[in-house]
């Protein structure tokens, strides 16, 4: 059992003080899973943070090589970023399709966009809800969950699963949209802005919340780029980079939407509040995309392009998409004669974003570290894979 190092020297003279090591996690309420942080603290001030990861390592990349075919990797991909499973499937499937040169029907592309954006909203809701929880606000968390529930219901009527979908298949989708999907989606689109406003009133513009997050964990744009941060982390620092706009995939170039960036409205550009607020505004933008996609949704068959046998030609591909947490990329090598990938490498946004944590949390207090970690929004399933 750890004890304190107490030096018993004369109090009158130079009292020797020392830093203390505080072990945060892997079982800790605010490390969002099983992250272990080794904190070197001077009183309540953080001198250094050393993240220890790997508690949730499940050998995803090796597993992917051992599968008998490419389709079997999809359920494993689901389990990486388990709060944004649709996004993961999308990235992997698009990579394989690029490798094989499959053209999918327009309807499939539109449905994929709708699903990915719904997933983005669900994921961001979880992110801002748990962020409130980290700062001691319990109620917004459950309000966010209430809204997330509606999205999960939509997923459930579509593919039967609520968390890990296996919905997006190579060349198509497992099911077409059910008939009642449109009605439920419209209902959600109508009620969600109101709910978002409520959450904003309760949490986003709360004086205490702003005091806790503004000017905390400032991540300058150059540091963010150097560390390879992506997603809301990068955009929170004021860098306007979003793969949906900069490198459009699917049919994203047909929609009108903005890329929210951190403006330092409450403090400095790139502080925790900016990162948080980028997420809130991204949800509004996602709503716009879903509305447009639903209006333009063409009829068609979602199974028509699904290949009988997935055996890509020899070669390699790197494909990246904008996941809720940032740039999710899959690098796949095919040897051309087996039906399983020779090598799969995932570039996980959470993993890269987490690497910047020690850089931005030095000199703040322990309570701030919780705020900073929450604003990085990691999912350990993806960090460890």
């Amino acid at each position, binding site marked *: *059992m750890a*004890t304190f190092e107490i030096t018993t020297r004369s109090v009158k003279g130079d009292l020797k003080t020392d830093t203390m090591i505080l072990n945060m996690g892997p079982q800790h309420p605010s490390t969002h899973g099983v992250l272990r942080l080794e904190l070197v603290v001077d009183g309540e001030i953080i001198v250094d943070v050393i993240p220890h990861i790997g508690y949730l390592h499940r050998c995803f990349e090796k597993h992917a090589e051992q599968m008998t075919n490419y389709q079997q990797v999809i359920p494993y991909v689901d389990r990486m970023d388990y709060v944004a499973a649709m996004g993961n499937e999308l990235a992997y499937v698009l990579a394989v399709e690029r490798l094989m040169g499959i053209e999918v029907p327009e309807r499939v592309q539109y449905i994929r966009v709708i699903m990915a954006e719904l997933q983005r909203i669900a994921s961001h809701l979880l992110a801002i809800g748990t962020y409130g929880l980290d700062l*001691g606000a319990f109620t917004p968390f*459950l309000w966010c969950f209430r809204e997330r529930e509606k999205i999960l219901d939509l997923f459930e009527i579509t593919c039967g699963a609520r968390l890990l979908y296996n919905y997006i298949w190579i060349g198509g989708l497992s099911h077409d949209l059910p008939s009642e999907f449109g009605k439920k989606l419209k209902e959600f689109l109508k009620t969600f802005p109101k709910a978002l406003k409520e959450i904003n009133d309760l949490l986003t513009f709360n004086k205490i919340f702003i005091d806790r997050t503004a000017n905390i964990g400032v991540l300058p744009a150059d540091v963010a780029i150097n560390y390879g941060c992506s997603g809301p982390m990068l955009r929170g620092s004021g860098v306007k980079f979003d793969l949906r706009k900069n490198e459009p995939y699917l049919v994203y170039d047909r929609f009108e939407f903005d890329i929210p960036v951190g403006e330092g409205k409450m403090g400095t550009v790139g502080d925790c509040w900016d990162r948080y607020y980028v997420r809130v505004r991204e949800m509004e933008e996602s709503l716009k995309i879903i509305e447009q996609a639903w209006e333009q949704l063409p009829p068609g068959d979602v199974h028509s392009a699904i290949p009988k046998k997935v055996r890509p030609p020899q070669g390699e591909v790197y494909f990246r998409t904008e996941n809720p947490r940032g740039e999710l990329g899959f690098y796949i090598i095919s040897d051309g004669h087996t039906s399983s990938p020779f090598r799969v490498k995932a570039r996980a946004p959470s993993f890269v974003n987490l690497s910047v944590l020690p850089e931005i949390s030095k000199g703040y207090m322990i309570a701030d570290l919780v705020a900073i970690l929450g604003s990085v929004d990691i999912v350990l399933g993806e960090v460890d894979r």
Partner: protein
Amino acid sequence: MPEILNMLIASLIPLLFILTYAIVILWVEIKVASHVQDRLGYMYTGGFHGWAQPIADLVKLLTKEHITPVSADKILFTLAPIIVFASSYAAYAALPFTSTFIASNLNVGIFYIIAITSFVVIGILMAGWASNNKYSLFGAMRSVAQIVSYEIPTALSILTVIIVTGTLNLQEICEMQKGGIFNWIIFKYPPFMFITFLIYFTASLAEVNRTPFDIPEAESELVAGYHTEYTGMKFAMFYLAEYANMFLVSGISAILFFGGWNSPFGEFLSGPVWGVFWFVSKGLFFVFLQIMLRWTLPRLRVDQLMYVSWKVLTPISFVNIMIVGLWAILK
């Protein structure tokens, strides 16, 4: 031996009150929290809206194993929850529940309450130190810093009331506010007594470690603060003390500012029995306010908390006490 019997009864009544109140308020807190959060909360145990759930929880806590960490200081570890609970229980001795019942009618009642509740700090520090856990120690240090800091604005705002009343005896303070709502101290020297109340209410939130000042127990930072290592009944003692303290500060709010056991309608619905009703319902109203605040606000950071106490509440209460004092002299 009738005297000893009398004393025993007088001391048992507050204890019984605390226990029944704790069970009721546990249920109320969960139900209020649930409705704030758009969910149902307890629904099954006992039938109507899970009314028996707190009792079940209590039984569970009673039957749980007492775990003492190997490297803990066993004596202090056991003593801490007792001190924390005992000091808040002892404070109930000077609370006038009604015009005819007060466990001990001290002529320095309010001073006694301030003094005896300071023991809580010692208990918390003992708990944090004895647990031999870094999180516990952090929680205890924060808690002590917080409670000691907030005792100053609390004491200053109570002092302001004492300038108005001229007595430290809580029963006399209640007596003075007889005759309807407009005789309550909150309406005296407008608006300064109202400011005093706001200061007292804010500071008392910090004294009982409630949101937005629940930093000692900050769940997401310190796991559970000073009671991280406690289990079973020892843990329940801390919990009970927290809820007892919540009513204590609310009861003092009611007595000092809102007429204590007096009816707001003058003679209408007054008398010893109605007195209990008015006092308890006024106290519960402020407990309810504390619960609502808890489920609405995030929590402050340690330095922001200190800022609120030393740079906002303390100076304002100094100015306030001077104005009220001058006014009282000039009148």
